[in-house]
């Protein structure tokens, strides 16, 4: 079946005089709008938006949607992104009128149910983290990182300490150094050792009284739990610095260990990953942060408090950094996360990580004879294979493998990240996939390995388009449609 309609742009479907939405006539006895406002403020004509009828509009966007891979249609083992099943019940429940129609500035008495939910969320996230206080405001993981670093800066300022540096392993997500820079710190890179863990010698050399925070991901982006963690946190704390955990990989350790128990002072969650957001083709996320009690006074305001008279928003936080987002953050995603946590309970949460780790190790075991996996033959919830030798021997790159997997109906793994692995192929199956799916995916990977290099360079072969010219896109950027085109 061909679906040519969806490849046209909505603007190309526009026909003067058509429209979808109609407004009621005005029911109040006042002059025309143009006579209520100063002439100088008014535009001569409304914006030149497209004019489309309802069926064209629907067909356009529905057909377009079929040109996506998604969790609901395809296995999506995108490393570091935790693309697990997004339960349908969450969508229905987040849409309840008593939730979706709430105005964020209505008085606390008129939204006790919502405040109770958010308070519960703060409490549950603190327990899973093994930390004392939670702020739900940050809108995404990177936003949580920035918020926590601003909290750290305020903490040190309050103590009269000047600390200018944030130490970050070379395997970290790019958001870590970017967040550090925006928070006003200098980012200093710490090397990984031959086991893919923090190089303790390098850390020891670079750690001094200028260090404010060590930002680590544990398990790290190689899918390895850094077993030096106790020594690392002790080292940092002895220097008076804080340890931050990038919580992107929490799916590996739920109910097995807690960041607070292994010495972390502050962390963010990716609710859209670990607690199955969903991801919305690039957001919304939610990036709450959890901190130790000594950092709690600096959290962004408001927090939800429980009092004898019910729940209320607490704005009276004199040492707070202020706020990082309007209102109360991405509540709709927090609501879905809450539904998930209430569905799982303690046993379910531990089962998540048990099976995420089991699935990743199983897949690793299935392919490791054929694919190089530089850092050991065990992993946590994800692992990083490398096409380095394939590239050397047969000119097959990680990108070739990624693109060919699309032909088999699988979304590609993350490729070329982390930067410490050449030709990286980062695979995170998640706990919601079955052994059968993993077996079929492993078979595809093994088969691709023996396909002709030239055939792989041309992949994908079965999607709507072949590989796009990304160089041209960046060189002569076309970022909008124009009528003359």
């Amino acid at each position, binding site marked *: 079946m061909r679906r040519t309609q969806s490849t046209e742009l909505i603007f190309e479907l526009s026909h003067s005089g058509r429209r979808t939405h109609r407004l009621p006539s005005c029911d109040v006895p006042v002059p025309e709008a143009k006579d209520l406002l100063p002439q100088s403020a008014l535009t001569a004509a409304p914006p030149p938006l497209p004019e489309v009828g309802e069926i064209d509009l629907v067909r356009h966007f*529905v057909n377009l949607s079929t040109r996506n891979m998604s969790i609901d249609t395809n296995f999506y083992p995108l490393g570091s992104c935790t693309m697990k099943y997004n339960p349908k019940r969450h969508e229905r429940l987040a849409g309840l009128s008593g939730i979706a129609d709430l105005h964020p500035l209505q008085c606390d008495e008129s939204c006790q149910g919502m405040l109770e939910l958010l308070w519960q969320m703060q409490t549950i996230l603190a327990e899973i983290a093994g930390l004392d206080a939670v702020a739900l405001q940050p809108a995404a993981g990177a936003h949580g990182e920035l918020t926590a670093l601003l909290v750290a800066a305020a903490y040190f300022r309050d103590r009269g300490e000047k600390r200018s540096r944030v130490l970050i392993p070379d395997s970290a997500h790019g958001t870590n150094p970017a967040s550090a820079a925006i928070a006003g710190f200098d980012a200093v890179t710490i090397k990984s050792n031959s086991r893919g863990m923090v190089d303790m010698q390098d850390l020891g050399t670079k750690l001094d009284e200028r260090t404010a925070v060590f930002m680590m991901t544990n398990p790290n982006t190689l899918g390895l739990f850094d077993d030096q963690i106790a020594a690392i946190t002790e080292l940092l704390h002895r220097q008076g610095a804080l340890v931050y955990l990038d919580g992107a990989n929490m799916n590996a350790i739920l109910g097995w260990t807690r960041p607070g128990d292994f010495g972390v002072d502050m962390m963010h969650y990716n609710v859209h990953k670990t607690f199955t957001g969903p991801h919305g083709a690039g957001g919304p996320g939610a990036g709450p942060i959890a901190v130790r009690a000594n950092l709690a006074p600096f959290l962004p305001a408001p927090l939800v408090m429980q009092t004898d008279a019910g729940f209320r928003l607490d704005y009276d936080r004199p040492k707070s950094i202020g706020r990082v987002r309007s209102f109360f953050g991405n509540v709709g995603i927090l609501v879905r996360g809450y539904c998930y946590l209430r569905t799982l309970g303690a046993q379910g949460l531990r089962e998540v990580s048990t099976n995420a780790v089991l699935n990743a190790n199983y897949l690793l075991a299935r392919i490791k004879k054929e694919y190089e996996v530089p850092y050991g033959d065990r992993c946590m919830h994800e692992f990083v294979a490398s096409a380095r030798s394939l590239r050397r021997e047969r000119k097959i790159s990680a990108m070739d493998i990624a693109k060919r997997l699309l032909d088999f109906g699988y979304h590609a793994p993350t490729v070329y990240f982390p930067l410490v692995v050449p030709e990286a192929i980062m695979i995170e199956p998640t706990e919601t996939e079955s052994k059968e799916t993993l077996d079929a995916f492993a078979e595809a990977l093994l088969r691709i390995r023996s396909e002709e290099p030239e055939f792989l360079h041309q992949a994908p072969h079965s999607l709507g388009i072949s590989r796009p010219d990304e160089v041209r896109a960046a060189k002569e950027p076309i970022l909008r449609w124009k009528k003359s085109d």
Partner: protein
Amino acid sequence: MSYVLNTADQQRAMLAEIGAASIADLFRPIPAALQLKRPLDVPPALTELELTQHMQELASRNRAALNSVCFQGGGCYDHFIPAVVDAVAGRSEYYTAYTPYQAEASQGSLQAFFEYQTLICQLTGMDVANASLYDGGSAVTEAVLMARTVTQRYGRVLIAESVHPEHRQILSTYLANLDAGVETLPTPQGFLDPADLKQAVDDETACVVVQHPNFFGGLEEVEALAQTAHARGALFIVSFDPISLGLLKRPGEYGADIAVAEGQCLGNPMVYGGPFLGILACQEKFVRRMPGRLVGQTVDRNGKRCWVLTLQTREQHIRREKATSNICTNQGLMALKAAVYLAALGPQGLKETAELCARKAHYAAQQLTHLPGVKLKFARPFFKEFTLTIEGTVSSILGRVLQHGYHGGLELGRWYPTLADGMSVAVTEKRTRGEIDGLVKAFAQAMKG
């Protein structure tokens, strides 16, 4: 219930393939002393039916559309959302996809975001728009960070007091450690007087930030303000109301360098404040300084038109600490909704929506100010929101108005100590004459005590 499919038999087979003796064996990398020896202390698991009942019970303890009428604004508005918006956004091919890194497998999202970028350009009259930021508040801050880099002026930022107080708070929180010299310009008459700006702006100023219509609902003298900023080489940043552009001049028409907005009003429900949509558009020449994701048009190997994420060398995953912003996950689904919403309205629909908002707001203002003790605070033209002063304690009057079934407005004293007797009222196209008359009656009774 954890949505796990592996059966006990399968788990055994998988462990055998791995060569692991047990599940515990897989978790050996976590030192034993650091492993949690007890179950997490979290509420017990619920089935879908129990969860539904629980959520319905929580929802029933909120006063929302089913049992009250919303006249609150302040950056979040109760506009009507056509069903097509939810039908499209409810397609799980969109909402269960990740950021479109693999272009061949993500053409649906990529094309939709390209259309969103174009629609925002059409809406604002600006040259380019990014594929979304978190919300209107962080968009203001990202615009300021961008202006500092564009102008290479790092010492001074001017922002009008009539900009949303929470947006100003976000700005000062982000910039706390950067010696950015953020100065708030007072707006005692409910708008930033261009003469006051002229006094304040200098050759060190990176940018001037205003909101139009502003937090009090009033219009700013945007043309004069833009000229004044430009005369000293500062960028002019405007935070606009997307719906207002059905009536008001577009940012591109009055010389804005960067235009930002809270895009919630474009097809997104209020959900107690999020997820919302940060809109950011700017002039072409600043594009390489822009924060956030951008979708660009290109061709595939067969010359077929297609779309990719582009100019990624600005972004954190390539540039790390030298990136234009740290943003990664943005608000893709909200951008998609905004795109469908704008296409559903079209030019005429947007114009009529804006006209209805303006007329109904003026009717409400007229009727409310007929009440003794109620006055318009500022002699400024306004769009869909306006500021009143009322005799009596604002919070208790609003509390009594709510008992009549109306969220009657926002108490301004919490942000502006000099406006202790002030409140703002927002009126969207959804509000009927009956609801407005009902609100007026509720105020009349509430003010009697």
